[in-house]
């Protein structure tokens, strides 16, 4: 793993990537944003990311499939699920399949940064994160 955390962010709503990319770059992460899961998977075939943040409900491929394929290829990668359709059953299924964490939308950038910091610590590469307070 390089010094900076490599994050792949996948969400079919452009606003999510637009908003979260700078929020994660602020804490020193390198972020690649994808809106199409097929393109994201093609990128993941070539490059190992430390963390994958993926939406669950998407056309073509859902977030649970992304989770399984990422962990198949890169078992050490931490996968964080984000969804606007959070329910207990989905949360449990995600955890059972190996998700690192599960976050319900809408959330504040600090909520994701906090989870990214937790994942970085679990990867043995802690990052400095102090909550900025509520946006």
């Amino acid at each position, binding site marked *: 793993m390089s010094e900076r955390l490599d994050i792949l962010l996948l969400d079919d709503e452009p606003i999510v990537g637009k908003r979260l990319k700078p929020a994660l770059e602020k804490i020193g992460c390198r972020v690649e944003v994808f809106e199409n899961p097929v393109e994201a998977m093609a990128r993941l075939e070539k490059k190992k990311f430390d963390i994958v943040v993926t939406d669950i409900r998407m056309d073509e491929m859902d977030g649970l499939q992304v989770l399984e394929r990422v962990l198949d290829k890169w078992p050490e990668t931490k996968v964080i699920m984000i969804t606007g359709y*959070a*329910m*207990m059953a989905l*949360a*449990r*299924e995600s*955890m*059972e399949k*190996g*998700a690192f*964490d*599960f*976050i*319900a939308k809408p*959330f504040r950038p600090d*909520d994701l940064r*906090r*989870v990214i910091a937790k994942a970085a610590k679990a990867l043995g590469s802690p990052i400095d994160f102090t909550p900025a307070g509520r946006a």
Partner: protein
Amino acid sequence: MSIIIISADDRAAEGQIGGRTAEILGYGRLGPELLQEIAAKYGVEEGKLAEALEREPSLLRGMPPKKWYYYLSCIEAEVLERLAADKMVCWSLAAHLYVLGISHALRVRIISDIEQRAAALAEENGISLQRAQKILAKQQRQRVQWCQTAYGQDETDPALYDLVINLGQIDPDEAAATIAKAVGYRKFEPMTYSRKCLANLLLAAKVKTRLLETMSDIHVQSRDGRVVVTTKALKRDKQKKTLAIKELAGSVEGVDFVEVHINNDIFSEAAQSLR
């Protein structure tokens, strides 16, 4: 770490298995002993809290519905506060009826052999088996009614639980070991979402408790510090009540915004129009 909520048709088994599970896992214990602490905190009688957990409101017994709901709300808020700390085993505090939708809460139902319980009751009290069976059947009916009135739930519905254990087939120690193993499944691990859901339930319970101290017929939902309160009032009292709720709810730590929905209290209005 997760939380475990145990409910049983036999209180003694509930405590025995809850305690044993906590011991195996090194988790904290959250049982009826908590009522003493709650009573001291809210300045109420411990016996009244215990009674509220067992029986429906009754004016004859000095337990009006308003007080009853308040007592239950005090218990709920304090139980949720402690569950938020994780690594807890909880029983006999009705948590299985209000800790809903929390993915890191393993919910367990323990059922026992009714014939064995009746035989034990008959022997203990020197009564006939038939009489003991009738007593247990009556207790069961009352319990079902209590759950319905208090939380609108049927605690005997297996769909409410992640794990159901029959003590007629599995002994208590084995039951505790099974629960301890099940909670280790990855699906019961806490996550940002489930912790938030629990925090939302806690904030709603705190607000409800604050409001029920002086008001009745209060329903509260919360999300990330935003609280929605629904209640009833006479048309002419709507504004006054809204302001009072906003002030009281707003004074609870963690509340950022209060929204109040007041429905017309049609029964009181009809009663007033007849005067």
